[in-house]
């Protein structure tokens, strides 16, 4: 992995993000309605709307708005939320932190659970265990988040039934146990689809590696089964799992939108939905930009991890 390669990748990401923001900006200005109408709602008078439009600079043409937005970014200023009158960095920053905690918890859980499950399924290929894991995985991929979340709410958080809080958020630095209790259901909802996806990937890759010449060779060298699995098979099966996980970050970023809505998790997804409903352009821009950047960076990171896992992979 040369430095030049990294620079090129980062430049490409910046280009991609530029395309994304321009597209979002153009798109959102085609939208009927604007933030002023949404803020004042049905019960506002036309002159109040006009007044608010002036206050929010919505009466300027979109390219002027875009240019001043870009100029702001270059000065590290992402503007002010039209709806919430708070700096976008503050609105998005806090939400990002909250979402990151949720997403990373889900991701960590997935990695901890999915990889062993996939390995187990591959080792027990064709047995009842494999079948059970497969069934679970398929079910996981077939249930949309909002159905899973609803089921979890009914069975694990219903009054007098479930042990878990039915949504809400507690910051871990305020109350770690409270955070843990609140994060379980949303993280489980998010994790289920990924879990299925990753474990299936690990299983198929592991099966392939298990059937490879070098694993056969390792077995025929008389190595212990433990060494064959942990040293010769698993590391070589992980690279594709890493690639899948990085692609799944995309799902995760999409999934938080629904999950946060249901579980009252104050994160990016909620900010985005709220901004979309209210035509809060600076916030839409910032969130899209952030999500795209995370996604692009996670792909880059996964490529780096893959290169570390597999010495054959070299980027120039």
């Amino acid at each position: 992995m040369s430095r030049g390669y990294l620079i090129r990748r980062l430049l490409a990401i910046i280009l991609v993000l530029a395309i994304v923001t321009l597209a979002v900006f153009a798109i959102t200005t085609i939208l009927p309605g604007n933030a002023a109408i949404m803020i004042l709602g049905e019960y506002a008078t036309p002159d109040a709307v006009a007044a608010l439009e002036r206050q929010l600079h919505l009466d300027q043409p979109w390219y002027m708005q875009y240019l001043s937005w870009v100029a702001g970014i270059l000065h590290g200023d992402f503007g002010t939320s039209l709806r919430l009158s708070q700096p976008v960095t503050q609105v998005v920053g806090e939400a990002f932190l909250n979402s990151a905690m949720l997403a990373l918890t889900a991701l960590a859980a997935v990695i901890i659970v999915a990889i062993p499950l996939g390995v187990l399924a591959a080792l027990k290929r064709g047995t009842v265990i494999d079948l059970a894991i497969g069934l679970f995985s398929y079910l996981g991929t077939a249930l949309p988040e909002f159905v899973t979340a609803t089921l979890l709410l009914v069975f694990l958080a219903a009054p007098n039934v479930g042990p878990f809080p039915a949504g809400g958020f507690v910051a871990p630095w305020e109350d770690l146990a409270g955070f843990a209790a609140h994060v379980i259901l949303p993280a489980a909802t998010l994790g289920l689809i990924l879990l299925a996806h990753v474990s299936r990937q690990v299983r198929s890759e592991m099966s392939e590696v298990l059937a490879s010449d070098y694993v056969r060779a390792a077995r025929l060298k008389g190595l212990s089964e433990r060494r064959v699995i942990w040293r010769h098979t698993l590391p070589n099966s992980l690279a594709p799992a890493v690639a899948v996980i990085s692609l799944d970050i995309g799902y995760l970023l999409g999934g938080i939108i629904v999950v946060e809505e249901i579980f009252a998790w104050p994160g990016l997804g909620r900010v985005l939905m709220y901004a979309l409903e209210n035509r809060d352009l600076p916030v839409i821009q910032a969130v899209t930009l952030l999500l795209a950047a995370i996604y692009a960076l996670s792909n880059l990171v996964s490529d780096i991890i893959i290169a570390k896992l597999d010495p054959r992979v070299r980027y120039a």
Partner: protein
Amino acid sequence: MTKFMLTRRNVVMGLAATALVPGLDLQDALAAATPKPGGTLRISHSTRIATLNVLNCSGPAEYPAVDMLYSGLTRMGPDNKPMADLAQRWEASADAKTFTFHLREGITFHDGSPCTADDVVATYQAILSPDIPAAARSVLNMIDKIEAVDPTTVKITLASPFADLPISTAHPNARILSKAALAGPREKLDTTVNGTGPFKLETYDSARMVRLVKNENYFIKGKPYLDAVELYLFPDLAAESANFLNGAMDVMLTVQQADFQRIAASSGIKAQRIPSGRFVNITMRQDQKPFDDVRVRKALAMSIDRPTLVDIVLEGLGRPAYDNLLSPEFQYAIQTPEIPYDPASAKKLLAEAGYPDGIKIKLVASNRPAIRAQVAVAVKEMAKAAGFDIDVETMSHDTYLANIWMKGQFYMGYWGMQATEDATFNLLLTSNASYEDTGWKNKEFDQLVSDARQTTDTEKRRDLYAKAQELMLRDTPYIVPIFEDVLTASGKSVEDWTTAPLSGYFYVENVWLNKA
């Protein structure tokens, strides 16, 4: 086609029979207990408190917040009558053109600075300024002049007589800001508060929780009882009710009709059902076909089985309305004749109007709140028998606001209860109403409303408003099928929680926690 003509008792599964104590009785019953101070009240709600700017906030959860943080000159009581707030008393001139408000002595803002007549004047000038978005302007635009006579006296002169000014000054968006705050950057009003209300703002996190703490210097001594109030946001209704029921929340600001029975039945929960004039209406553009013909509007009116609508859409938690915008709570509301569900006659009327083969038409509903679409879908089914082939188109609220609202031909409206007859008619029905969206412009009606506004004589007003209502019922500018009750609930230890039928008044300063 008789399936909608069922008696309600069959349908509601005894819901109406369960003894639901109306809010006012509840208060009386508990008045005996002595309030205990202290504790934190946790209130759950499902829409975001996006702003704390009292001038233009409109969200269902923003109102309780500003109600706790700010005070107005006057305030609406649970009995729908204006009561004292910052102004201890007020008097009107005989011609109802000059009003004098006397403020309480020694009121201070949360930051300790005094609240004087100057602040009141500054606030009203801001509300009346066309450069500032202010929701209360439409009810206060008859004000010609406002002046501070002395630090505790405010004199308001009106351009035209208006007897109900003390009700207008109680408008939830007409609460008093400090002069200094109004002079500063206006965006700060969204996130910071310096009011005179019973509670002070401590934490404002619009995505999760807004925390208010006791204002020790509140102008009513001994109140509020609570140390703090926390408003928690649960966008998902199922999660909200689950949190309320398992005790994580003390008050559920708004209970969904679907959940009301279940919540009311839970032990220790005090569920309140407050009859209100909040209504759903069907807008019919009357300057174009087919609704230019009153017979078509009447035919549609006859095609709706209103009691059943109350049962299946409101779960019985409301009352049928018969196209009168005024619910029986209004002082001058007339006894509105019931319109029976009669698709056969409706069909005949349609044929008379020149539509023997019925009418095919698209009814648009926003998806927020869900009740709009629910009524639309039900109306579609009910009116089928009369020959109305209604195609319901539901759309997201933002699209609705941008494309349909005030422009469309046939769509669902939804309005909270207004404080007065005048406010209601000037909102929707007079020729220059703020949201005149039907094209029904009637000079005679305008005159009646205008005359009523300028009179202080109760009997004369009653007469004028009755005539106006008869005019309205004759022409059916809107179809108003149902009035929706206001539903709220509080947990075991919460005492004296209540809410007014008008949105915007909550009296949290009276609430106390009865923890053993």
